[in-house]
């Protein structure tokens, strides 16, 4: 009997504990929902106050002195500020000063105990900081948390604090690919100011690093400053790492400086097929007709990817199609295939067939269709 009684007690206790747990969960959810709803209501109320401030700038804003600590206010301020530009955005910037928002966020970033507090502080600074916050942002570029590092870089980019460029570039080596990529986005925001620090970084590091210099070269390409062409040519000549050379070739194609044609033509004969393939593609991107002979010669390359890129580049080049039509009669079967594929991709086959139907064909049209038909016959 005692045994049965004991089992009953255990079952009751387990049941009671489960019930308590369920109640705690339901209660916790309800509390969370109430807190979230209250924050949402406060955010809406703040948006209304800020809207009124913009619509009626002569009226004083009535807000408590502790709003700098209220996440709902910070969200509202960031959202409204991202809605307008010009004097209205400046007016909201004045509120940032008046309520000491950046000072509060800097303090929380430095001394906050909870990660969520520090993350919010970093986002607040990234969105609302002015130049007075630059030292804190630079200091936290090496924060232990990657999101905070990214937000600090973003903030520095937003305020255009150029002394931060070197600090951000120097972090390339130690960062994960994700953070490095976000840092690169920030550097693009700095624009041409970042060109020389990036060039200097690549020149110093390309002998013993890969990922950092590759990101830096790609960033230079995105910034699009033609002053980078000459140093990139020098880097292409000096670098041994194929990844860095490939990134540099792509950047030179993107920057499209005519100075790059000669070194790219040299690279079109490199022993590494990846270098050759990227070089011919870059020559096509530059779009200078002077590159046509080098591209036509690459149609006979041993590597399919090089032949394909050369043919595609010729198809985009002014008067490049001439070389493709000529290649249809090449002794090299690979060159003939690459040329015909590029012509087909460029819509030349359809155009030729139509002109033949209309009785307006050219000798090139006849040559192309004869080649295509002969291929069909061979396949059949």
């Amino acid at each position, binding site marked *: 009997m005692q045994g049965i009684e004991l089992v009953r007690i255990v079952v009751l206790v387990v049941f009671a504990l489960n019930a308590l747990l369920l109640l705690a969960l339901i209660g916790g959810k309800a509390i969370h929902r109430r807190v979230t709803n209250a924050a949402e209501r406060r955010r809406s109320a703040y948006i209304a106050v800020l*809207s009124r401030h913009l*619509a009626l700038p002569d009226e004083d804003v009535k807000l408590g002195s502790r709003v700098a600590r209220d996440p709902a206010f910070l969200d509202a301020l960031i959202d409204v500020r991202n*809605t*307008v530009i*010009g004097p209205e955005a400046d007016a909201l910037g004045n509120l940032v000063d008046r309520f000491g928002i950046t000072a509060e966020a800097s303090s929380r970033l430095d001394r906050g105990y909870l990660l969520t507090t520090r993350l919010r502080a970093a986002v607040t600074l990234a969105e609302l900081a002015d130049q007075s916050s630059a030292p804190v942002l630079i200091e936290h570029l090496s924060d232990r948390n990657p999101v905070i590092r990214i937000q600090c870089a973003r903030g520095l980019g937003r305020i255009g604090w150029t002394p931060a460029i070197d600090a951000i570039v120097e972090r390339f080596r130690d960062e994960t690919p994700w953070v490095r990529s976000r840092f690169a986005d920030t550097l693009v925001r700095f624009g041409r100011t970042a060109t020389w620090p990036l060039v200097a970084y690549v020149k110093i590091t390309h002998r013993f690093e890969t990922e950092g210099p590759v990101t830096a070269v790609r960033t230079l390409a995105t910034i699009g400053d033609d002053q980078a062409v000459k140093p990139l040519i020098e880097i292409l000549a000096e670098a041994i790492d194929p990844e860095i050379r490939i990134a540099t070739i792509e950047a030179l194609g993107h920057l499209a400086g005519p100075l790059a044609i000669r070194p790219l033509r040299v690279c079109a004969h490199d022993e590494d097929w990846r270098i050759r393939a990227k070089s011919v593609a870059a020559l096509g991107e530059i779009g200078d007709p002077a590159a046509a002979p080098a591209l036509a010669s690459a149609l006979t390359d041993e590597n399919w990817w090089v032949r394909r890129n050369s043919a595609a580049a010729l198809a985009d080049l002014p008067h490049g199609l001439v070389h493709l039509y000529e290649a249809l009669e090449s002794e090299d079967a690979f060159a003939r295939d690459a040329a015909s594929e590029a012509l087909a991709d460029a819509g030349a086959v359809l155009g030729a067939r139509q002109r033949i139907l209309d009785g307006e064909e050219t000798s090139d049209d006849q040559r192309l269709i004869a080649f295509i038909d002969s291929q069909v016959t061979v396949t059949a």
Partner: protein
Amino acid sequence: MNAETSKRILVADDAETITSLLMTALETSGYEVTVTTNGVEAYEMGLDGGFDLVILDHLMPGLLGLEVIQRWREQGIETPVIMLSGVDDDHTVVASLDLGALDFVRKPFRLPELLARIRQRVN
């Protein structure tokens, strides 16, 4: 009350910051403002007519701004529309103007400039 008192404007945008700001600014200028945050609702409100101008976002839940204008035009509703959107690719801008939008304002925007455009279109 000023000269614009009788003019009715529909603001259709799913961003609370936009609806709040425009409602406050337009009401302060004496317009009668109705707000919606949903494309379908905007379309239905527009069918009843009675609006002198619509400020229309493109990316809204329910229906896109472009679809709203297209459906109004198919129904013969010719209410003037100013598109206000963060999506400013050529296709959206050209399609909006082709469908009869009077203007296309990009977000973020200058408030006084938008208000001037609204005044010009409504009066």
